């Protein structure tokens, strides 16, 4: 087993982020100082400016851009809010404090900068993301955490008070929360040679109990439904920095399929951001064809499921690998869906002992070809 190690990525990134915030501030300052109304130009986030880029396999913003000008009566307030958000993020990053969207909303009042509601402040944070091309997590603004990680990976904290401290992510059997402290830590060492991302908490616990991390030499990630941005970012880092493949296991229905797709190709909402996708990640199951092959207990697809399948059929992200279209067609043919837990009909360990190795092997073979 090889020891892999990546260091200095986080420190470097932090400098970049503070640099981009300062650049924004300097730009506004210089415009004011030379006696002109400051403007900020950023890509437009309107739906007709969001395109799928097959080369990088994610949604991107098009050529169109919008300019916020302090000269415009309708812009001057959001402009001020954006300047405040940039300054606030800069303070957070500088002092290495974290915050949540809710917290931002209330913090504004301390600066006598009121937002009409939570939505208004969320929009300003998204503006800041678009203007700088950085995600809010980079500015230490995090949503509530719920996803977790488990496996032989030793991390080194960079958060204040923990600098230099290390933790092996297999030290706690419930897994470790993917929060600000974890996502901002450097990867010190690992023996794992793959990442397995799992949609549901029940299966995540089962895998830990059944020593999947040892048997398959893997790092287990619980996405807890649709993976939060920081979890997607974390998976990408695992893939890029440790250079190990990522396999995704979800329920066998259109929703599970799309959880895998968002990890692989991202979402339209985050079209202004990069580094959240893992284009090489592999959806390993549960496929529609698995339902047939393994004779899994199923539920019928309801109208919403069918509608969703038709949407996905047209979705540009599903046009690359023929696997997707094939599975969508199979779903539509059999009109059934199955959960990951359906394997329990063959006994508690069947999924770990039989299904998982088969699927991992299957994919490896496929890759080698």
């Amino acid at each position, binding site marked *: 087993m090889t020891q892999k190690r990546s260091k200095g990525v986080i420190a470097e990134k932090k400098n970049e982020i503070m640099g981009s915030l300062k650049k924004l501030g300097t730009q506004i300052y210089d415009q*004011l100082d030379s006696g002109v109304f400051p403007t900020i130009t950023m890509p437009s986030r309107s739906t007709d400016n969001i395109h799928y880029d097959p080369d990088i396999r994610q949604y991107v913003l098009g050529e169109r851009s919008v300019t916020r000008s302090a000269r415009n009566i309708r812009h001057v307030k959001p402009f001020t809010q954006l300047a405040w958000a940039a300054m606030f993020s800069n303070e957070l990053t500088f002092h290495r404090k974290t915050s949540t969207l809710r917290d931002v909303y209330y913090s504004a009042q301390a600066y006598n900068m009121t937002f009409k509601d939570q939505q208004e402040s969320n929009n300003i944070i998204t503006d800041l993301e678009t203007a700088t091309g950085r995600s809010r997590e980079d500015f230490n603004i995090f949503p509530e955490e719920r996803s977790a990680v488990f496996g032989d990976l030793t991390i080194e904290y960079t958060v204040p008070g923990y600098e230099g401290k290390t933790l092996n992510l297999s030290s706690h059997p419930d897994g470790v929360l993917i929060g600000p402290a974890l996502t901002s830590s450097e990867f010190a060492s690992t023996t794992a040679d793959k990442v397995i991302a799992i949609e549901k908490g029940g299966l995540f616990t089962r895998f830990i109990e059944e020593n999947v991390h040892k048997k398959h030499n893997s790092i287990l990630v619980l996405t807890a439904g649709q993976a939060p941005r920081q979890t997607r970012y974390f998976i990408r880092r695992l893939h890029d920095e440790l250079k190990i493949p990522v396999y995704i296991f979800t329920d066998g229905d259109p929703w599970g399929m799309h959880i895998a797709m968002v990890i692989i190709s991202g979402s339209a909402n985050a079209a202004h951001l990069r580094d959240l996708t893992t284009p090489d990640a592999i959806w390993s199951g549960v496929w529609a064809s698995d339902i047939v092959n393994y004779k899994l207990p199923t539920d019928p697809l309801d109208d919403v499921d069918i509608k969703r399948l038709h949407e996905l059929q047209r979705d540009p992200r599903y046009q690359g690998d023929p696997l997707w279209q094939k599975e969508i067609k199979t779903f539509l043919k059999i009109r059934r869906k199955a959960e990951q837990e359906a394997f329990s009909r063959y006994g508690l360990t069947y999924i770990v002992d039989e299904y998982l190795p088969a699927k991992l092997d299957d994919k490896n073979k496929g890759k080698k070809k």
Partner: protein
Amino acid sequence: MAQATFQEISASDFFYRNRDIAGFTNPSRAIFAAIRELVENSLDAAESLKIPPDIYVRLSFEGEASRDTQIYKLRVEDNGCGIQPRFIPSAFGQVLYGSKYKLKQMRGTFGLGGKMAVLYGQIMTHQPAYVTSSTGSAKIYSFKLMIDIQRNRPLILDRKVLINKEQWRGTIVEFTIEGDYLRARSKILDYFKQTAMVNPYANLTFVDPKGRLYKFNRGTINMPEPPKETDPHPYGVDVELLQRLIHITPHKNMQEFLKNHFHRVGDITAQKFQVFSGLTTASCKKHGKLAYQDINWSRGPNCSRCGEVLTLSAYKNPKKLSHQEIVKLMQHLKKFKEFLPPDASCLSPLGEELLKAGIIKELNPEYLVVKQRKPSTYAGHPFIIELGIAYGGDIPKKGSFIIYRFANKIPLLYDEASDVSYRVINAMNWRRYKVSPDMPIAIVVHICSTKVPYKTVGKEFIADRPEVRKEVANALREVSRQLQHFLSKREHVDREKRRLSVFAKYLPRIAEFSTTLAGKEKQPDIQKLIKSVQKYDTEKK
């Protein structure tokens, strides 16, 4: 078997029994009505000489009368024309005294007000009235009077003549009255305030029973032209008036009678009317007796076929008309379409300037527009509508428009909802003018006429006559349009102010945040930017 007793009653007696119709409904209303009638007489007396009125009213407590009422002494002094001594007893001691054969715009047109007050006072307290007056001559006359109610005659209890050393002119009336001042107080104060509004050239002073002084000073000494006396217009007469005119006329033929006793009736009109009504006939030498429509009147009565001058049959003697003929005459007077409309010389409107002065003086609005309409007529009576709309300033927001109603310069304080103005104002589509009742708006409506179309003897509200309604509505539209302009202009200014305040609020913050973010020491100077917004905006206007 029921027995009915019939007895003749005098005018005084009639009004004593029916004092409700003259406004003396209850103790609080009575005290208000008494003050009002006397103040109005005083205003008329001063205006007839075009002297800015100085009126002093004092109500003093004399003693308790019943659980709810007290005895007060009411004293009203004015600087008006005064009354000649021979008329004083009748003027205050005889109900319905006065000449009714000439018309002009007056406040008290019933000849009732002052006497009614004195009569009421006498009934309730059995005290005499004191009247002192001088026309500015060498003597002042002072009377102590009571009314013989059954005979409708003044009783002179005492009469004094004083030397008028200081050439005083005016009238002082003093008598006791029973009433309820506490309840009447707010109406009385409203009355003075509104009287001051519509008589901006008058000084009004009121001292109430508690010794409180209310003073309404004049805002101008300009006064409207006093009204001229006019004859009644043919459209406005009834049989009774015709009979009285016939009774007093010195003229022995209809031509002279019509010309001399009716408003805007000249030689030709009188002849035309007589032919029209068949009082006289016109005949042509060639064509004989002609019908009304066959006569060409452009150069006197000519035959429309041959141009021959016509001969009219002899004019009748009005004194010899039978009762049926008088009724017919009255009907023809109303039917004849060619009488000229009454002119407005008998009216004395305030005029836009004075109305403005009065409203500004009493309401102190932020914006005011007034409009005087051209004279119009209803049923042969000329009238003029003057209307003002006032916005903001000291005018409170009440959730509905504040309406001030005036008729012949007296405020109307009761029965607002029955008044034609109230109805017109409420029927108006205010949204068209971007005006809403929750704005601080007061509307002032003044009607002046030789015969104000009151609905009741109490003179509290104007009847809903189509001619009056139309004039009020038109005046209201005109002023509302101007108010709309004002409001939209002001909204524009407000919008610009708000705009500027947005920049003034946010630009410094942007400077502050960007300075911190850029890590600079000194904030950039943004005053120039804020000024540029201002400059740009003033140019835009």
